[in-house]
């Protein structure tokens, strides 16, 4: 038996991330055990819900390592919880794969810490690349004040200059706000704004999108990968969401992937299984957990051992591994292993995701 | 009309009524006198149902009251004017009186209210003011008036004369005597034992949770022990 631990935010303000992650991990463990486990050993998953509270996450990390004696940890749905877990896992030399966005988690590189999601920065870069192509030079931003939104807002403002774009209006909303017409009106009335970018997750972006339509703003609207799932279209309404662009992963366009796409098999398999099991549509975040688990099991298989040190070494040598998010190539300098190509710029047309090219 | 047998009651583990026996006949005024802490208030609270009974029985008009919640007793005709007045401080004087007649919706409510105002004219003056702003004595009058609004057939009065000016004390005792004429039965707890015994038919003396003496009011007034211990004469 190989003991693996996980601490995700299955409830609380980040449940939007943690819930699909928890479900994904449980499902994958079940699948792998049905197929005889890894190297003939079953996997025992201990999964805790840290509710998005970094303090709890640290306690659970301690518990996983000291009490449950796991050989590796997946989790940390948010940056805060990930940072809390990693300081424990590094101390105890247990490999940890984070599911959170911030670049600080793996930069500077820490020996036992890895992560699967692209960084916020990459999402920003992808979006700005697209804007550049459309000759957009002045934008307005409206960001959620939750960790996800705030972090991406900062990263975007950090790299925006590299694309010759200026942020002329910079507004925020709280994750529980009910109406964003005020902020959007301000952005609309700002001189020269050619497009609007909305980093955020949860219901905020849906409301922004609806208010956008209510105010009949006819500038391009960009959302973040935080809302990359079918649920977003449903909530915002296909009509309001028409034309919205965002950087997404292969998961959302599984049926549009070419037969030769290396990600196709893994994306298809995950999507079918998840949607069948939970009755809800797949999203980016569940995909992160899927990839973390994939990287971990792949590493254990290759290492032929369930020793933490061996697993760590094997993870670091992951190469060409196709996940739902992208193709992972880890190295001693890069504990993420994704590049920009993992993101695809998507646009909602007629209530469906389409690839912009 | 009201019969109490072997009544016991306790606060927590401390028993303060150790088996009280008393009865009040229809149309009678009966008074209970006793020192501070004797248990008079506790007795009345047991009767009105706001204090749990741990033993004995209370029979009112031939029916046991045990287990009947406090709020259903006024409907049976048993009404209390409690110690410490317990008025609705945030409501107006008039609202207090109307709530006194909470169980009735007929026209008599208005008439009763007029009667109450006639009895205590100051209440009419203050009818639209919050009762909490009344002076102590005015509140006491309100408590009495509110109890009368409930059209009791048996009225439990806990120190109705407390804090009242002598002239009003007189009036209160007159009112209580007048109730007798209307056929209302009264159980009166008073520190003004002299005044109470003067208008009462019978009296009980209570000491540390027990009835130690009882008899016709006139006899009690004359009893030297009572005169010394309670009347201070």
């Amino acid at each position, binding site marked *: 038996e190989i003991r693996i631990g996980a601490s995700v935010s299955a409830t609380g303000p980040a449940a939007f991330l943690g819930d699909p992650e928890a479900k994904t991990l449980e499902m994958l463990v079940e699948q792998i055990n049905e197929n005889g486990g890894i190297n003939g050993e079953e996997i025992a998953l201990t999964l805790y819900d840290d509710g998005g509270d970094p303090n709890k996450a640290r306690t659970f990390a301690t518990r996983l390592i000291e009490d449950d004696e796991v050989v590796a940890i997946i989790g940390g749905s948010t940056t805060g919880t990930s940072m809390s877990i990693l300081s424990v896992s590094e101390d105890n030399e247990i490999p940890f794969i984070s599911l959170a966005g911030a670049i600080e988690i793996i930069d500077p590189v820490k020996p036992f810490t890895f992560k699967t999601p692209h960084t916020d920065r990459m999402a920003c870069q992808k979006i700005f690349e697209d804007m550049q192509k459309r000759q957009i030079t002045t934008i307005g931003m409206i960001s959620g004040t939750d960790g996800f939104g705030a972090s991406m807002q900062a990263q975007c403002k950090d790299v925006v200059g590299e694309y010759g774009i200026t942020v002329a209006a910079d507004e925020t909303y709280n994750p529980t706000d009910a109406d964003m017409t005020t902020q959007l009106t301000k952005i609309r009335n700002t001189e020269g704004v050619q497009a609007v970018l909305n980093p955020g997750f949860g219901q905020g972006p849906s409301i922004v999108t609806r208010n956008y339509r209510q105010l009949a703003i006819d500038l391009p609207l960009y959302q973040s990968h935080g809302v990359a799932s079918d649920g977003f279209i449903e909530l915002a309404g296909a009509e309001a969401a028409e034309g919205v662009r965002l950087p997404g992963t292969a998961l959302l366009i599984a049926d549009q992937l070419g037969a030769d796409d290396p990600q196709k098999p893994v994306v298809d398999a995950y999507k079918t299984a998840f949607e069948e099991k939970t009755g809800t549509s797949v999203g980016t975040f569940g995909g992160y957990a899927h990839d973390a688990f994939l990287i971990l099991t792949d590493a254990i298989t290759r290492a032929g051992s369930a020793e933490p040190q061996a697993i760590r070494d094997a993870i670091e040598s992951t190469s060409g591994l196709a996940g739902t998010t992208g193709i992972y190539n880890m190295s001693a300098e890069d504990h993420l292993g994704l590049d920009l190509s993992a993101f695809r710029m998507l646009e909602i047309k007629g209530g469906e995701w389409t690839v912009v090219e | 009309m009201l019969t109490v047998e072997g009544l016991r009651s306790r606060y927590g583990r401390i028993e303060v009524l150790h088996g009280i026996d008393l009865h009040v006949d229809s149309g009678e005024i009966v008074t209970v006198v006793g020192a*501070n*802490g004797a248990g008079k208030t506790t007795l009345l609270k047991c009767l009105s149902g706001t204090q749990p009974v741990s033993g004995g029985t209370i029979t009112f008009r031939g029916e046991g009251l045990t287990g009947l919640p406090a709020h259903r007793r006024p409907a049976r005709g048993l009404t209390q004017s409690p110690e410490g007045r317990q008025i609705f401080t945030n409501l107006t004087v008039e609202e207090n009186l109307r709530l006194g007649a909470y169980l009735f919706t007929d026209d008599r409510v208005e008439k009763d209210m007029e009667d109450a105002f006639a009895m205590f004219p100051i209440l009419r003056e203050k009818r639209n003011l919050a009762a909490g702003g009344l002076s*102590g004595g005015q509140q006491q009058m309100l408590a009495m008036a509110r109890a009368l609004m409930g059209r009791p057939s048996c009225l439990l009065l806990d120190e109705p004369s407390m804090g009242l000016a002598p*002239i009003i*004390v007189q009036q209160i005792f007159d009112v209580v005597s007048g109730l007798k004429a209307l056929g209302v039965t009264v159980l009166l707890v008073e520190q003004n034992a002299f005044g109470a015994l003067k208008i009462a038919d019978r009296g009980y003396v209570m000491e540390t949770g027990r009835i130690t003496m009882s008899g016709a009011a006139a006899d009690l007034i004359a009893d030297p022990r009572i005169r010394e211990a309670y009347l*201070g*004469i």
Partner: protein
Amino acid sequence: MTALLSVEGLGISFGGLKAVNDVSFTVQPREITSVIGPNGAGKTTLFNMISGVYQPGSGRVVLGGEDVTGMAPHLLARRGMSRTFQNLQIFQSMTVLENAIAGYHLQERGPVLADLFNLPSSRRRAAAAQAGARELLARVGLDRAAEREAGNLSYGALKRLEIARALALSPKILLLDEPAAGCNAVETEEIDHLIAEVAKSGVAILLVEHDMKMVMRISNHIVVLDHGEKIAEGDPASVSRNPAVIAAYLGTDAGTEAAHADG
């Protein structure tokens, strides 16, 4: 003779009602000055203004030569004023003893840090207060109830506890609002003696009470209020014979009773 307390033209209104209007009188040390009057005459309100619970609308309160009009109660307490309440104000969840000790606050208070660290100075202050409090409880007959939770006492007992707490301040002037309410004739007499004794020890006493026997027996001086105004003032004998007072307040019965006690 200089008065300890003098009230000069004091007045206050509540939404148009002149609850107290232009009332003046003085209170001497060692004397018991009673304020009587019908219900709602403004006696308690007068107390509330003198003791700083209400801000007077007009007039002055002078205590020991100092103008203390509208001064906060805790500052008045430091200047030797203490009072009881008509509507009991007991520290319900504290023990009877602790209630009495609270009366010693001014003597026992000290730097909060000393209290936090339980320094000897803090312990000394507390111990002194406790000894005093026990004595006082004995004086009002509550020593046996010292360790009980105050909220569990009967009404009459609470009245006496309030008096004990007020005495704990070793006041120069003591305001008593109906101290005998809820006590029978015999108990009233005990309170009587207590008050007289306190007055004799040099304290000025201002008393509100409806028990005319008591008032007439122990007062040196009586002020009569009606509808917020002073309608009479004088010694017990003259006041109890005053027809205006009898009409407004005493009624015939009590009037004779009072005169009887007086005679």
